[in-house]
């Protein structure tokens, strides 16, 4: 079976759209981290700068899996490995 190039491009676009669904996970994770950080600052306002830097570090690490999905989407859209 061989497919038309346009068909493969369309399927790649659908795949790219599906790949960025990976953004759900980091969104939930970063929200949980930010919520707990807000609770921690409410309990101990003196430690605000420490809590903020720890939260940002954790969020940036949690973001990685979402970025992998984004990378897959970009490869499908712009590098077109399947065509």
């Amino acid at each position, binding site marked *: 079976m061989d497919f038309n190039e346009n068909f493969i491009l369309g399927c790649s676009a659908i795949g790219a759209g599906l790949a960025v669904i990976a953004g759900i996970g980091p969104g939930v994770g970063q929200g949980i981290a930010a919520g707990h950080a807000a609770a921690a600052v409410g309990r101990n306002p003196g430690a605000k700068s420490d809590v903020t830097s720890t939260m940002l570090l954790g969020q*940036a690490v949690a973001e990685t899996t979402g970025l992998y999905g984004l990378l897959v989407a970009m490869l499908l859209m712009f590098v077109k490995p399947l065509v």
Partner: protein
Amino acid sequence: MEQGILLSAENLDFMIHGVFSYTLFGQTVWITTSHVCILIVFLVLIGFFIAARITMNKASEVPGTFQNIIELIVEKLDGMVEGVMGKWSPKFRNYIGTIFLFILLSNISGLFGLRPPTADYGTTLALGLITFTLIHYNQFKYQKVKGVIKGLCDPWPIWAPINIIGDCAVPISLSLRLFANVLSGLVMTTLVYGLLGKLAVIWPAALHVYLDLFSGAIQTYVFCMLTMTYITNACNTD
């Protein structure tokens, strides 16, 4: 193509371009725009460092503006390294300070019209491999071969392959994190400029503040923090 002002998609351009190529041992090697941008970043940093050296040679008791800025940068970087690495900080503060300034300037160079060099996987993979080399060099230096083998067979010896895969994943995840963050910022600003055309006048400045300045600074901080944490773990013998 008739697309009006809203969809001028043909001037979307965030790819790396070749400048010129040469042949080395039968392989065609390209000098790309990333190399040019890295060179510009290097030249700016070297100029800054030379200016800093000249200023600090005739440092005065009451510091001027430029001396104040240099002292602030060095104190902040030293404090950051000191806070994470503790007693190992004197050996690594030079390296961490250097990569911090380099990655920070690379990430925000999109503001000055360059294509950020860290949006090229070659650059970030090189940085990740330097971290990988430092981790394992220091592990062999401080924990000796016995400690390394003990670390590999951590819960039980049968877990050694999983630990090896985990070690090899460190540079890949470090470099991909930095690369994908900077690339996503670059793609988003390019999409806004390319697709909105004449409508993108002043308000994209807010996008630049978030995607270039904030995201770039956070990712620089994260890269340096993780590098320091991994190296400290490799140095500690217990």
